[in-house]
C-alpha cells in the first residue's frame, strides 16, 4: 500500500443523469508517468477533479502515501502535493504571466508582507524559458495565444514542488515544438521523483512517455498495464470496446472546380500576402507551428479578423466578407479552435447550439419549427455519437470531446460549401476522431471543400489531399498528396522556415 503516492479506491461519482465514475480505482507509483486514456465522456476529467478536490466523490476512498485522506478543496490538494494542469485553461487573462504563474504562491520581500515582483518576474521568465518560451512575462495573458497559455499552466504546476502533477490533455493545443518541449519537461520532472498522471488522446505520446497506462470506459476501470505490454490496437480495443482498422480512413475524392481563392490577404503584423486556392471535393490541410497565423487566416476569411487588404473569391466570383454573417451567407463554415469561448453557448442546450448557425432552416415563417429542431437534433446526437442525457442538456455539462462534436454538428447543419476546420479533433478520442474524419470524407464526397488547420502532423498527412505550410503569417509552400515530398520531414522543414 505504502508504495503509491496516490491511490483511489472504488470511487463513484454521479451527475444529474449520468454516472461519471463507477467503482473506479487508480494507483500512482512514486516517480512514474501513468497514462490515462478513455473515450470522450469516459470520466477522465471527473476523476482528476476528484483528485484535486474540485468535486467530492459520492462513494469511495482516497489514500495519499498509504494514508487515508479526504481532499475536499483545491487547497487540500495543493497541501497534499497534488498539482494539476486542467483541460480547460484556468488563466486570469487580465493579469500578467507572472501573476498567473505565482497565483497563490507569491514571493514576498524579505521580512515583509509585500510582494517581490522583481524576483517573481525573474523566476517566471526562467521557468517559461525552461519550457522553451522566451516571452515577456510582465504582459497580460490576454496578449498570448493558446499555446503560450498552456505553457503558463504547466509552469504553474512545475513551480510548486508537487509530488503528483496531473496533466489533462496538456498537448491538445500545442504544436510539435511545444509538445517536444513538454515531453522533455515531463521526463525531467520524473527524474526528480515527481509522479505524473498524463491524460491524452494521442496514443503516440503515451507510448513515448508513459511507464504504465490505465484505460477507462464509461466511468469504469478497464485495465492498467505496463506500456511495454501494450500496443496501439490493444489500447484502442480496451478503450473503444472494438477494433479500429484504420486511424485515418482517407477516401480520395475527385477534385472539382475552384471553391475558394484567397489573393494577397494582408493584416499588418500578422498575415502577409496569404494566397491560396481550395477546390471542391478536396481536403486542404494547413500545417504550421503554434502562432503561425493559421487561426488568423481562417478568422480573416470568415470576417472575424481585421484585414488591410486582399481579395476573396468564391467559385471564381469576388465577394466581400465583412462579418461572420457575410461569411455564412456565402456558405462558409468556421469551426473555431476555442470551443468554449467561440464555439458554444455553454448556458444553452445542445438543441439550441445545433441550430444556431442556420436559424432560418429551422423556422416556419416567423416561428421556430420545434419538431424539426428535435428530429434534427436527435439525428445529430446519433450520428455524431454525442454522449448526453438528452437533447436539451446544457452544453456546459458535456465532456470536452462531446462539446466539440456539438460544434461540428452546428456547422453540418448549415449546408455550407466551404468548411474551415480549425483543430477539429482537438480533445476528442480516437474513436470519435475517426467519426470526424468520416464526416470530412462525406463532405468531400458531396463535393464540398474542406480546409483543415491541425497541429497533428499524422492527421494532416492522413487526411489532406494537399497541404499548405505556414510560418510567421506567411505561406511557406504547398505539397500535394501524390507528390513524393508529402512527408512529415518536409512539412516540418517548411514550418521551421525552410522552403519546399
Amino acid at each position: 500500500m505504502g508504495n503509491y503516492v496516490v491511490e483511489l479506491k472504488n470511487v463513484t461519482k454521479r451527475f444529474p443523469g449520468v454516472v461519471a465514475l463507477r467503482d473506479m480505482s487508480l494507483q500512482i507509483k512514486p516517480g512514474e508517468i501513468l497514462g490515462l486514456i478513455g473515450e470522450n465522456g469516459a470520466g477522465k476529467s471527473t476523476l482528476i477533479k476528484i483528485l484535486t478536490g474540485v468535486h467530492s466523490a459520492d462513494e469511495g476512498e482516497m489514500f495519499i502515501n498509504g494514508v487515508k485522506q479526504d481532499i475536499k478543496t483545491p487547497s487540500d490538494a495543493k497541501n497534499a502535493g497534488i498539482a494539476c494542469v486542467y483541460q480547460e485553461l484556468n488563466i486570469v487573462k487580465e493579469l500578467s504571466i507572472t501573476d498567473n504563474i505565482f497565483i497563490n504562491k507569491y514571493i514576498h520581500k524579505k521580512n515583509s508582507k509585500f510582494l517581490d515582483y522583481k524576483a517573481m518576474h525573474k523566476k517566471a521568465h526562467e521557468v517559461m524559458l525552461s519550457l522553451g518560451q522566451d516571452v515577456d512575462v510582465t504582459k497580460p495573458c490576454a496578449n498570448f495565444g493558446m499555446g503560450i497559455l498552456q505553457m503558463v499552466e504547466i509552469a504553474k504546476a512545475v513551480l510548486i514542488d508537487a509530488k503528483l502533477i496531473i496533466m489533462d490533455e496538456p498537448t491538445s493545443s500545442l504544436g510539435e515544438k511545444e509538445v517536444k518541449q513538454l515531453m522533455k519537461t515531463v521526463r525531467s520532472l520524473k527524474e526528480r521523483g515527481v509522479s505524473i498522471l498524463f491524460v491524452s488522446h494521442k496514443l503516440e505520446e503515451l507510448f513515448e512517455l508513459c511507464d504504465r497506462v490505465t484505460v477507462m470506459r464509461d466511468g469504469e476501470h478497464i485495465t492498467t498495464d505496463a506500456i511495454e505490454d501494450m500496443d496501439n490496437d490493444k489500447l484502442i480495443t480496451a478503450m473503444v470496446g472494438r477494433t479500429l482498422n484504420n486511424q485515418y480512413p482517407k477516401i480520395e475524392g475527385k477534385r472539382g472546380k475552384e471553391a475558394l481563392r484567397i489573393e494577397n490577404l494582408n493584416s499588418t503584423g500578422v498575415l502577409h500576402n496569404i494566397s491560396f486556392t481550395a477546390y471542391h471535393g478536396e481536403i486542404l490541410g494547413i500545417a504550421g507551428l503554434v502562432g503561425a497565423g493559421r487561426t488568423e487566416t481562417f478568422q480573416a476569411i470568415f470576417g472575424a479578423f481585421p484585414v488591410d487588404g486582399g481579395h476573396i473569391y468564391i467559385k471564381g466570383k469576388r465577394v466581400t466578407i465583412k462579418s461572420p454573417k457575410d461569411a455564412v451567407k456565402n456558405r462558409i463554415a468556421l469551426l473555431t479552435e476555442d470551443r468554449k469561448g467561440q464555439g458554444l453557448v455553454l448556458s444553452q442546450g445542445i438543441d439550441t447550439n445545433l441550430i444556431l448557425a442556420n436559424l432560418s432552416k429551422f423556422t416556419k415563417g416567423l416561428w421556430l419549427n420545434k419538431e424539426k429542431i428535435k428530429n434534427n437534433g436527435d439525428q445529430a446526437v446519433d450520428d455524431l455519437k454525442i454522449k448526453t442525457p438528452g437533447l436539451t442538456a446544457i452544453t456546459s455539462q458535456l465532456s470536452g470531446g462531446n462539446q466539440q462534436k456539438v460544434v461540428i454538428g452546428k456547422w453540418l447543419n448549415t449546408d455550407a460549401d466551404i468548411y474551415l476546420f480549425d483543430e477539429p479533433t482537438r480533445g476528442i478520442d480516437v474513436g470519435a476522431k475517426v467519426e470526424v474524419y468520416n464526416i470530412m470524407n462525406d463532405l468531400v464526397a458531396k463535393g464540398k471543400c474542406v480546409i483543415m488547420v491541425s497541429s497533428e502532423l499524422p492527421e494532416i498527412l492522413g487526411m489532406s489531399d494537399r497541404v499548405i505550410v505556414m510560418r510567421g503569417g506567411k505561406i511557406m509552400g504547398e505539397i500535394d498528396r501524390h507528390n513524393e515530398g508529402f512527408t512529415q520531414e518536409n512539412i516540418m522543414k517548411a514550418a521551421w522556415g525552410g522552403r519546399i
Partner: protein
Amino acid sequence: MESIINIKKILGKLGPLLALIVLSIILSFSSPNFLTINNIMNILRQTAVNGTIASGMLVVLITAGIDLSVGANAVLCASIMGMLLDKFGITNPVILIGAALLTGVLIGCINGLLLTKFHLPHPFVSTLGMKNVLCGLALFVVSTKTISGFPGSITWLGSANLFKRGSFSGIPIAFIAMLILFVGFHVLLNKTALGRAIYCAGGNLEATRLSGINTDNVLIFVYSLSGFVCAIAGIVIVGRSGVANPSSAISPYDTDAIAACIIGGASFSGGKGTIWGTLIGALIISIIRNGLTLLKAASDVQYMVIGIVIIAAVFIDVTRNRMEEKARRLAGK
C-alpha cells in the same frame, strides 16, 4: 405533451411562485382587506407600470446587459406628450401616442447603438449616462412644468377598467395590456429564431457572432424593444397619475424593474430568465407594497420588508435549485 412540459417549466419557477404564495397567505391573515376582489384588482393595477418596464428589462438582461434609462425614458415619453399638449395644443391621440412610442424606441435604439457601434463597454455606463440626459430632456421639453389635462383617449390605457359594475372596481386595462405584451414576449423569446438569438447572444456573444448572427442588430433590437415598452409605460403612468411630471424621471423605476426580473429568475450574466418569472417577480413587489400600505407600515418598515423580500425571494430560488440538483444526483438514475 408540450403542455405538460410547459406546466413543468412553470413549476420549475416554483421558487418565486412559492415566495408569492407564502407572502399572499401571510398578508391574508394580517389584513382582512388583502384577499378582497377589489384589492386584488388594485394589485394588478399597481403592477402594470413596473411589469411593463420589467418586460423590456428582461430581454436586456437576457443579453447580459442592463438598461438604467428605463424610468427616465418612460417619463420623457410622457413629457413629450405633455409638451405636444401644452405647447402645441395637440390632443389627437394618434399623434401623441405615436410621438411617445417614437421617442421611446429612438432612445432605446441610441442605447443599442452606443453599445454596439460606439463600442461602449458595459451598458451600465451608457444607460446611466442616458438616464441623466433623459432626465434633463424631460425637464427641458416641458420647461419643468407638470402637465395635466390629457384627453381621455390618452389616459384610457392607464385608468380604464373592464367589467366595472357596482362595487367591483373592474379589471384594469393597463394590466390586461401588460399581459398581452407578456404573451408577445413569451412568443418572441420561445417561439422565434430572434428569441433564440437573444438568449444565445446573452450566453456567449462571440460564439453567436461567429455563428453568422448579426449580434449588433440583435442588441440594438433588444434595447429598442426596451425603449418601446418604456413608452407604453409612460403612457400608462400618465393615465394612472393624470399628469406628466418631468421631475419624476430620476425615480428608481429601473431598480424595481431589475428586481422583478431577478426575483423571477433572470441573471446579470445573461442567457437566463423567462417572462412569466418576471410577472411573478413584479407581482411580488406589488404585493409587498400593497400589503405594507394596508398594514399602514411606516417608511422604515416598508424599506426593510422590501429589502428582505428581495433577498429572500432570490435565496429561496437558489436554495431550491441546489436542493433539486442534489436530489437528482442522489437519485442517481
